[in-house]
């Protein structure tokens, strides 16, 4: 096992990873920007290095600074968390070059799986259904031709996309040109790669994803599904597992297919297969995330499997100690993302407690929320034996959570969990509408 790991991230996920390391007896190295010098992850780590200014490009995306810190601290591995450098094959290769283990898939498979259009081609041969679509389209004219062929409405998506950026819905032929130009410009600025592809728009649909763990020995285990249909402008707000829209039989089948597909792709590490679930109960493969997800905690609460620890163990070459039949998928876990509405300084924090209530956060009294990074303050997660009980628990926990000094979306979350469409489980991606 690695005796020291550098965490190339900040916020709640850096705290989460450091906690896992502490339990495993692994020493931790934090890196931080000037804006984060008083952050909880810095205080919790055994060592810390300031790696640059507050802008992410100067610090958490500064590959050379992070590698230098790792070499200086003699860290044997780097955990990238999510976002920032977590899906950056160039960084993973740089780690390899310096004899440091990147906790995630190897750079080759990361490159192979990060091109969404190419990945769909690969997945087509594994037995999963893929949304009908094109490879990268090179011009607005080519886009029009492809969209005409597929039939409107269609989606235009960035090949290197993620986080809901570089995506446009096109209802008719007239909208293609504008959407193409906007999406490519957005993709260039967000991912440095302007290529886009077109696929059929599945509507109405739910966003359902499957959590996978795969080791070097070829063992693959699926830790169930997560329903992430509650989104605003493609940003997830609330997640639950298992999805109330998936029957036991459907789940068994899709898990079997996902395991087979992961084996055929030769993937190693923690990963997520994302699907759209249509009204007829068909799963349409969208993309694969080759990293830890923000919403991994609901899976942990449901299955009792610590995903961060297993990511680290897999990177150290340790084989999974459990099989598919050992994974309990009973009960319900729900997660509400608590986001900041604007900048501010935390004056008071009260965290709800009780059995199976978890709040993953980086907030401590005096923490300032700066404009440089995403607005996620923390994740409130509950687990209960039934969905009804989990709903009661999340409502009670949301009411007990107090964050004073920073405006949050707590009340909006309370409205969502009280909404009849949510409580009945019959919601889809249209839930938030234009709100």
């Amino acid at each position, binding site marked *: *096992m*690695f*005796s*020291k790991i550098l965490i190339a991230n900040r916020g709640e996920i850096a705290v989460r990873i450091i906690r896992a390391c*502490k*339990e*495993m*007896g*692994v*020493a931790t190295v934090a890196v931080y920007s000037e804006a984060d010098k*008083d952050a*909880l992850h*810095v*205080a*919790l780590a*055994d*060592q810390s290095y300031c790696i640059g200014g507050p802008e992410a490009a100067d610090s958490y995306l500064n590959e050379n600074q992070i590698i230098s810190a790792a070499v200086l*601290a*003699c*860290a*044997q*591995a780097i955990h990238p968390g999510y976002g920032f450098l977590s899906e950056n094959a160039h960084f993973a290769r740089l*780690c*390899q070059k310096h*004899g*440091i*283990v990147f906790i995630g898939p190897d750079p080759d498979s990361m490159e192979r799986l990060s091109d969404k259009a190419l990945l769909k081609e690969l997945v087509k041969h594994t037995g999963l259904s893929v949304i009908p679509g094109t490879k990268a389209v090179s011009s607005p004219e080519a886009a029009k031709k492809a969209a005409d062929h597929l039939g409107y409405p269609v989606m235009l998506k960035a090949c290197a996309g993620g986080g809901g950026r570089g995506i446009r819905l096109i209802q008719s032929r007239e909208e293609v040109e504008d959407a193409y130009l906007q999406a490519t410009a957005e993709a260039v600025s967000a991912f440095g790669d302007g290529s886009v592809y077109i696929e059929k728009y599945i509507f109405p649909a739910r966003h359902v994803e499957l959590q996978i763990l795969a080791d070097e020995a070829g063992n693959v285990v699926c830790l169930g599904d997560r329903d992430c249909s509650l989104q605003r402008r493609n940003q997830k707000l609330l997640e639950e597992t298992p999805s109330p829209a998936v029957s036991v039989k459907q789940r068994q089948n899709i898990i079997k297919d996902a395991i087979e597909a992961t084996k055929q792709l030769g993937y190693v590490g923690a990963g997520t297969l994302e699907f759209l679930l249509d009204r007829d109960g068909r799963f349409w493969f969208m993309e694969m995330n080759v990293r830890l997800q923000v919403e991994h905690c609901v899976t942990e609460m449901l299955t009792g499997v610590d995903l961060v620890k297993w990511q680290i*163990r897999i990177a*150290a*070459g*340790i084989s999974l100690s459990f099989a598919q039949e050992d994974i309990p998928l009973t009960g319900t876990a729900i997660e509400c993302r608590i986001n900041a509405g604007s900048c501010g300084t935390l004056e008071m924090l009260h965290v709800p407690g009780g059995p199976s209530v978890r709040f993953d956060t980086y907030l*401590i009294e*005096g923490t300032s929320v700066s404009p440089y990074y995403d607005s996620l303050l923390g994740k409130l997660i509950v687990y209960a034996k039934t969905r009804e009980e989990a709903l009661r628990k999340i409502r009670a926990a949301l009411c007990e959570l107090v964050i004073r000094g920073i405006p949050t979306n707590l009340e909006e979350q309370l409205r969502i969990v009280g909404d009849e469409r949510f409580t009945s489980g019959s919601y889809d991606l249209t839930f938030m509408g234009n709100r």
Partner: protein
Amino acid sequence: MALIHFLKPKNKLEEGGRSAALVHQDEGEPEKNCPNCHKDIPLSRLWANHMVCACGYHFRMKARQRLHMIADKNSFHELYSDICSLDPLRFPGYQDKLETVRSVSNENEAVLCGTASIGRQHCCIFIMEPYFMMGSMGAAVGEKITALFEYAARQRMPVIGFTVSGGARMQEGLLSLMQMAKTSAAVKRHSDAGLLYIAVLTDPTTGGVTASFAMEADIILAEPEATVGFAGKRVIEQTTKKALPKGFQKAESVLEHGFIDEIVPRSSQKKLLAELLRIHGGTS
């Protein structure tokens, strides 16, 4: 806003798996250059030969690798692994240095203690770790060695000790120096109980360790060419303003002056130690 100071959990490192990145085959096997014959030796061959070059040069060896060479398979039972250095004087940079050497050496402290069998002869054993601040003796090293001798005295067991040290750990100041008296007292009590202590001095055994438990054994062995001394060669030269003879502070010269009983190459250490333990233990 000041950073919160959290206590650190003392969780043992999870076992299993790799502790470093895989070496890719196209990079070729790493080699080490022998300072004696100047030849490059593939690491795998060096490891297989207990870190001894074909010319006879003894490279430094990690404590656990040495344990693997000396002790019977699966016989080692570690003791006092939870005792490790704090930073009592808040010496600048000491905490960071400790963190770094812990990760490089994969050890919590500069000495490994426990019980083991050598050629089926049960004994207490301590092995100092050169890759942990050159085996320097701080309060934790002193405490572990003292505790081991006390345990050996209670259990009426012999002690085998492999020493390698740059001396007292300067970052712990006087607390380091008092370990000399503390360990010596423990060795004396063990000796007064009529029990055997064999020291094997390895390169380098110097400073406060030489001036205490390294030279207090009933039988003192050493590895070929090991540096054994108190103050460094340059310090003596600068103080006395006299050139020192060739081979000064080498194990061979120390043997000649009667401070060492025998020089034993690594290849015959296990057999000799087992034999000595058998003779003095009264078992056949």
